[in-house]
Each structure stands twice: as C-alpha cells, then as structure tokens.
C-alpha cells in the first residue's frame, strides 16, 4: 500500500511544491509539503505562456476569459501535483524523439517545457512575440494535430483538459459562463431545451460522465 501506483516518489515531488504554492499564492492549507527547490518550478516565461495559451483556448466574450480568472496558475499547480494523470510515467511506445528531452527520471513528461518548445518551434522563435491572431493560428494548428483522427496521443490533450478544468471550476466560468445551482430543490424531469440555455457546472453526473 505504500507504493505509489504512478511510480512517482515523494522525493521527486516535494521538490518545488511548497515554493510553487507560495509563488502562485495558493492557500497554504492546500499544499502540505515542506521540501522546496527543484526542477519543477516554472520559469516566469512558462508561467506567462500558459496564461496566454489558456486565454487563446477560452477567450473573453460576454463573460471573462481564462486569463482573467487565473487559469494559467491553476494549470501550473495542477501539473506540479499530477492532476489528470500528468505525473504518470509515459508508456514506452509513446515516448517519441520529440518527447524524450522532456522526460523526467520517473518517466513522466515535463508538460510546460514541452509546450514552450513546441510553440516556439512552430513560431520560428519567440511564440509570445507574435500578435494574438498569429498565436491563435499556431495554437489551433497544434490542437488540430492532437485531435486529428488517428493521431498519436499528445500531451496537449492533458494540458487542454486542465485549462478547461481551471476555467469551468472558477467562479466566473462555473457560474457566469455556465449555470451553477448548488440547491436545485426540485426535479423537473422533462422541460423544453430552448436555444441559448446554458449547461450546468453543478450537474455532477454530467461532469463525471458527460
């Protein structure tokens, strides 16, 4: 029972977690580790990059965008803590030459350095130097490749999933972009779905299975 199923050990992890929490202003209660320092602290540039990328995925509209609600820092925290299986060792067959430089000792992927590398490479230099339209085009290409039929599994799908989680579990994403009703009080089993009706972030079964 003491073995971790992910193959990832505490020493690898504790490096960085507490310092990261401080840097991001995460409530200390959420982070119980005490051995700061290490390889997983994001650079300022990586932190800016993921904030920007999250906003390209979920831009502001009549409701706030991902950057407005701090989704980038949620993704940094989530990756450091391995949410959505992001600290699970990659299967041997999945490790391509492009992923190899970003593999940790425990076999898992450093998602942020990988994303930074991919976007800078696609941009032919500094991704963040381009205007929003060009950054959107570059990211859309990366996304299209990852979601193409028959595509090899891409780390982007996990990053994108965490961006969605960060946004739709934020107060604006959960209760303005979507509807949030903690106490419905009743069960209406068959009502008309009118155009424009928004989904519920508080439909927990749909969140799990939808």
């Amino acid at each position: 029972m003491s073995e971790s199923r992910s193959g990832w050990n505490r020493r690898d992890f504790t490096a960085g977690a507490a310092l990261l929490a401080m840097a991001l202003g995460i409530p200390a209660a959420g982070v119980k580790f005490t051995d700061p320092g290490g390889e997983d602290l994001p650079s300022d540039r990586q932190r800016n990059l993921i904030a920007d990328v999250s906003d390209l995925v979920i831009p502001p509209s009549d409701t706030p965008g991902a950057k407005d609600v701090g989704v980038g820092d949620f993704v940094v925290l989530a990756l450091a803590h391995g949410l959505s299986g992001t600290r699970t060792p990659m299967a041997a067959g999945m490790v391509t030459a492009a992923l190899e430089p970003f593999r940790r000792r425990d076999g898992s992927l450093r998602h942020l350095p990988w994303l930074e590398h991919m976007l800078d490479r696609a941009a032919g230099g500094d991704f963040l130097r381009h205007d929003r339209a060009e950054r959107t085009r570059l990211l859309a290409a990366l996304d299209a490749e990852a979601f193409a039929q028959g595509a090899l599994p891409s780390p982007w799908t996990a990053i994108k999933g965490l961006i969605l989680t960060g946004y739709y579990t934020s107060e604006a994403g959960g209760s303005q972009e979507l509807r949030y009703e903690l106490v419905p009080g009743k069960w209406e089993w068959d009502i008309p779905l009118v155009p424009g009706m928004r989904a519920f972030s508080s439909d927990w079964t749909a969140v799990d299975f939808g």
Partner: protein
Amino acid sequence: MTNDTQFDAIVVGSGITGGWAAKELTEAGLTVLMVERGRNIEHQTGYATELKAPWEMPFRGQGDAALYAWEYPVQMLNRHFNEFTEGHFVNDAEQPYQKAPGKDFDWFRSYQLGGRSLTWGRQCYRWSDYDFGANKRDGFGADWPIRYADLAPWYDKVEDFVGVSGAAEGLPQLPDGRFLPAMELNCVEQAVRERIRAKYPDRVMTIGRTANLTEARPEQGRAHCQYRSICARGCSYGAYFSTQSATLPAAKKTGRLKVVTDAQVHKVDYDAKTGRVTGVRWIDTRTGEHKVAYARMVFLNAGAFNSVHLMLNSASEAMPRGLANSSGVLGTHIVDHANTMAAMAVMPGFEGRTSFGNRPTGIVIPRFRNLDRLDGDGFTRGYSFQGGALQGTWTRGKRMGGIGKDYKDALHQIGPWTMVLVVFADSMPRASNRLMLSRRTDPRGVRQLEIAFEHGKEEMAALADAHREATAMLTAAGGHVIMGFDRPGHGGTSIHEMGGARMGWDPKTSVLNRMSQAHDIPNLFVTDGAQMSSSACQNPSLTYMALTARACAAAVSMLKEGVI
C-alpha cells in the same frame, strides 16, 4: 447508566447495520455501547465541504493527485472520492491491508462515525427467493437457512423507517417494497423503458429505488431531497438515510446509548468456561491507550471484512482458529459483484428536451436471466443493470478539437443525451476467495487483513452476456452504442464485498445460524455483510438492515428469556 464499562450489549461499528443494532437494542430497553474506530462526525455541523463551490477548494474539487497517489491510492479509485468527500474515506497509508500475491482487491472504506452510511450509493432492493434459493439450486456455497418469507416483514419495518422512494413493478425477482413516491424517469429513460418493453416483454426498466426522501419526515427531523446529488459530502437536510440522519438520533433519544469514537476494537473476549463472549478490547487511536468494556452480548457490525478480521484476531486458547470458527470456514466464500460499464450509447431524437435538478438515483433493469428457466450461457445466476440517461456539460470539451470563441460557445450549450448501463453480476461463493490474517501489523500493532479474491469463469460469462444484451437493448431503443466492456474491474470495485462468516443450517459448514447468531457462541451476533451466504445481484444494504433488525428482536427475546 450506573457503570461506564458494563452494558447489556456492545455494538462494534456505527455504519448502516451498527446504527440499526444500536437503535433496535436501545429501543427494546437495553443499555448499549457503540464502538467506532474512526472519528466523530456530527450530523449537519460536521459536513465541512457540503456547501463549498469548486472555486472555494484548493484543488477545485479535483483534489491533490500527489497526496492521493501516496496516501489514498485505493480510495482515489472510487468514483465518489474527490476533494469534497476525501474526509469521508480512509487514508490507505494509515489503514493498510494486504492482497494475496497476484490478486487485486480495491477495498473502499470509511472509518468514521456513520461509516459508509455517509458515502453509500443508497440503492435499496429486496432480495427474492431466486436469491435465497440460489446456493441450493446450483450447489455453490451453503444453502441459506432463510427464505424471502422470513425476511419480508423486516424489509417492511426497515423501509418504513429508512424512507425508500421507488416504483412498484410486481416483479417476483425484485419484490416491491413500501415505497415513497418515485422520482420520475427523464425523457430518454421513459422512451427507453417503453422500447425495451416492446422488444423484450420480460424486461423492465424502472427508477432506482433509493434511500432519498421524496417526502419530508418531520418526526425524524429530515427534509425532502433537494436534488443536489452530492450526498457523499454529508447532507444537512438529512434527506438520505445515514446513521447520523436517522438511526443514531433514534438510539440517542432512548438515553441508553453510549458512543465511543477513535476506538479500534482488536479483540472480542471469550470465556471458555461459560462459552460466552464477555466484552471487547480497543485501542484509543488518539492516545494509544488500551481499553475494555463488558456486556451480556456483542453485535459485530464493523463492515463485512472488518468483522471477519476482528473474529480472526480474537483467536484464543479455546478457539485457536478464530472466534466462533469451529467449522473452519470463517473468512472463506467472500463475494463481491462483478461490475463493469456494459454499454454507453448516444441517444438521438431528444434534442429539444432537458431536465432541471440533479436526481440522486439512476435506473435499474432487474435480473432477467436464469429465473424459472436456466438460460444463461455458462452461468447459473443473474445480473442486473443500473445507470441512466444524462446530458453532457463542459467536460466533453476535453475530447473535442478547437480553441477560441466558437469552441467556448459550443461548450456552454447543454450536451447531447447519452445513456449508460452498468452491470452488477452475482459473485459465486468459493472457498478459495477468502480472508486471512497477515503477518504484517498496522501502525497500532494489530495484525492486518489479507484478502485473496478473484472473479471466476461464471462471472466472466455473465458479464459477456450482459455486454451483448446491454448493446442490443440500447440499440433497440434507438441508441448508437459507442463503448462497452465485458470484463470486470478488480474485486471490491462494486463496494458490495460480503461473506466470510456465512449463515447456514449446519454448524460444521457455517459460522452463523439463521438468526445471525454464532453457532458456537450464543451471545455473539454478526449482522453486517459478513453473514451473507451468497451475493445476489442486488445492492445488499437493505438486506443487511432487515437481517439486523430481525437479529436484534431475536437477541432481545433470548436475553429476556434467559437463554443468553
């Protein structure tokens, strides 16, 4: 109460059956000590995360995956385990158990006042004579020494108190109970019910029978369900049945109940001269102190495997193989429903319709195999489906390509209807599926439990059939099946682990008699899942409750008559 270590009865455990034992015994006039190994959780004020939104949680309700990987590697596999509910599950690192080499068992546990009554799935089904007669019919396991008629009045009694909503269907394999008004099927489920009935006249899809109140119970201080479907956080409305919401207040009201928490019972004392148990010993898990209390009888309600564990750990010179184990079958013939998602389908044709509220139950398709005719291919018992129809929300975006405004706008729309059928199949009682004491000890020095369990070819055959039938039914109902499985998850996955101290007619081949009383020790009763001689394919908790109420009545009469 004149003495704080001497009681009429001691109840070990405070979950679904411990709560019932405490209620029934105190209401009959007995003084009772209830001993719970976990922490106290007060009804209402103790449900710390009940009203929190995801944005008020450090990890947005998802939880700290790093913490879970080290300290909750088993519990984290439970669908109901998340950042809101983690406090209602054990820390696996602090509560270790062993698995036999090469065998897996995911043991989901809740050590706290109320036990798993706080986190249970709330599904309440009567068993029928197809179930109580199953062992005799195909020869697996020992014949149940009871039949449906023995239990029917006790089902009535517990349903009246619990509050079970459901629809009467008149099915012999799933007898109707005393139901509160049913929650309605949604529009897709109503259509699927009719389409299945048209093609398969012997198959019924009905609303899941659930211990959520559709009518308030003011006399119990319980409000009607608020349709939140976050039950496992704890419900301050008291709308679902738990120890805290229902049985504990009733027992406390008598003035004859004492509760001690943070108390890990490690031994039941047995007096070889009188042939009786005399009390229990525990470790105060906060101070490490060893304590003892005495009683005229003992009820084990620690949870199926924990009650067996305690009996194995209570071996003595007079009973070297374990308490009440002259038969040698203690620990054997454990069962757990073989369980998997048999089919998932997209359900077109309902695009203009939706629902409001989160209904805390799904549907059930009761068993249709091996009833009066043995029509299973490679299996002799049954399976049933649970599940339901739902519409997606934002999480479907994780599987969708696209970024930007159009993508964002697509995700705020209510998603398409899908329908899921999850199968639960009978688990065959086998001597080789068993519990033993490990040589390893837990952090408090108590020998750990070792679990040896695997599903066999009968379960595989049932799940293969269930996968075919689920696919056929959803297709016949107009759905496009997109996925489905025919292999079970690890043992433990359905959280219906049972057996190990089975009931039977013969003291040489069973641990308990037909009143849940140890053959070897007249003042010892085991009324949780440990007593089960077979698994059926229904959720078992309602049957545990009925058996507990029945055993309590018998024990009280025996005590009054001076038999024990």
